[in-house]
């Protein structure tokens, strides 16, 4: 039977390269794959484009990647309160693409679902329409928003079975399921790995087709 379990975080980030685009799940610390982040720092890769809702705080979170100067650009909705990122942003060392959160996650879903984009009413008449194509449909004007995809997605789940089905914990679900669909390689850090068949097939949130590697946080 399919088995996507890898030994540890180091094995989980294998293949990550300079210049890659990387999605990282989480809203604040909920859903953030912390062991994975530490392993990414160990790889020493540079020039990453990061796609994540936040940009860290002052703690050991996405801040780790900024401290290690691995990030060239971040696409996110709320990078406030992120000390290391802010320092580099002020110096012009890192680029920011700010996206309203609902548009952010819908662009990721579009990337995973093979859509070329979608028409959104969000941001019309604001700075968020700048540089974007406007399309009229059904007699109303919309902004054309384009899909996001990544080389790697790293998210945090609660349980994974050995074939790669995943569940999440409460509000730690957030952006993780959509991100899991939108990368060449999707890696899920979980609390615990269970046998195939141990998860309720009605309650699996990310089916294994989207998942390339899982590992249990130590």
């Amino acid at each position, binding site marked *: 039977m399919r088995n996507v379990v890898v030994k540890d975080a180091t094995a989980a980030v294998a293949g990550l390269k300079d210049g890659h685009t990387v999605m990282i799940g989480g*809203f604040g610390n909920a*859903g953030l794959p912390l062991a994975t982040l530490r392993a990414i720092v160990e790889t020493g890769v540079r020039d990453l484009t990061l796609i994540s809702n936040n940009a860290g705080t002052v703690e050991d979170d996405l801040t780790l990647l900024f401290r290690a100067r691995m990030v060239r650009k971040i696409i996110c909705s709320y990078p*406030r309160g992120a000390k290391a990122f802010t320092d580099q*942003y002020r110096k012009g060392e890192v680029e920011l693409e700010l996206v*309203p*959160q*609902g548009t952010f996650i819908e662009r990721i879903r579009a990337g995973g679902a093979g859509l070329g984009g979608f028409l959104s009413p969000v941001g019309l008449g604001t700075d968020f329409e700048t540089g974007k194509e406007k399309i009229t449909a059904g007699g109303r004007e919309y902004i054309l928003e384009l899909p996001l995809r990544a080389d790697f997605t790293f998210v945090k789940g609660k349980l994974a079975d050995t074939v790669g089905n995943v569940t999440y914990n409460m509000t730690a679900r957030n952006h993780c399921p959509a991100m899991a669909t939108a990368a060449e390689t999707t890696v899920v850090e979980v609390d615990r790995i269970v046998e195939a068949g141990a998860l309720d097939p009605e309650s699996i949130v990310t089916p294994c087709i989207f998942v390339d590697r899982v590992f249990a946080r130590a």
Partner: protein
Amino acid sequence: MKTLGRSELARMVALHLPRQGFVNLGIGAPNEVGDYLPADTDVMLHSENGILNIGPRPPKGEEDWDLINAGKIPITLAKGGAFFDSNLSFAMMRGGHLDIAVLGAFQVSEKGDIANWTTGESNGAPPGVGGAVDLAVGARTIWVMMDHTTKEGGPRIVRACTFPLTAARVVSRIFTNIAIVDVTPSGLVLDAVLEGVTPAEVQAVTGAELTPARSLRRIDMTGSVAG
């Protein structure tokens, strides 16, 4: 001029919510409205990070950092609540499924434009927007809750917003620490004024014309409104 305290303002907004419906309370001050909902309310609170039917705050020491609201504050799940992913959560917002969103704001215009995500003057700090735009565009009814003036005493209710817009023509009601103002097709209507404050005093610190309601209501210092 007398002003309502932050908690009393939250209480005033809570007293105006309907008995039922799906409500999103924005980050910061609006979030405190939840503390003043009656125990038997049928209102269900939504948070954009993927939860419907938020319960009371958890007791100290029982916080779970996987169970937070959009302000990243620990919460609980009430009976009949559900968890879901961000796509479904923002579909609830953008799709018009939320009855009311209560938002903070820097400025609201007489047309109902809202500016609440940035003042545009960041001194080089990165801006952040979160779900502010999605919420302002998506919820069926947008209420704003804010201090009536800036710290310097300047108006926040204005003819046209000078700060970058969050969304145009969406706000229907403004709750401030001295008044309640309705945004109507024929302009701003002063619905209620804090006791000890006159309509003229409210107008003096407002940057757009207010028409007093036919029967002006009175706000007391606890946030109750009568008349």
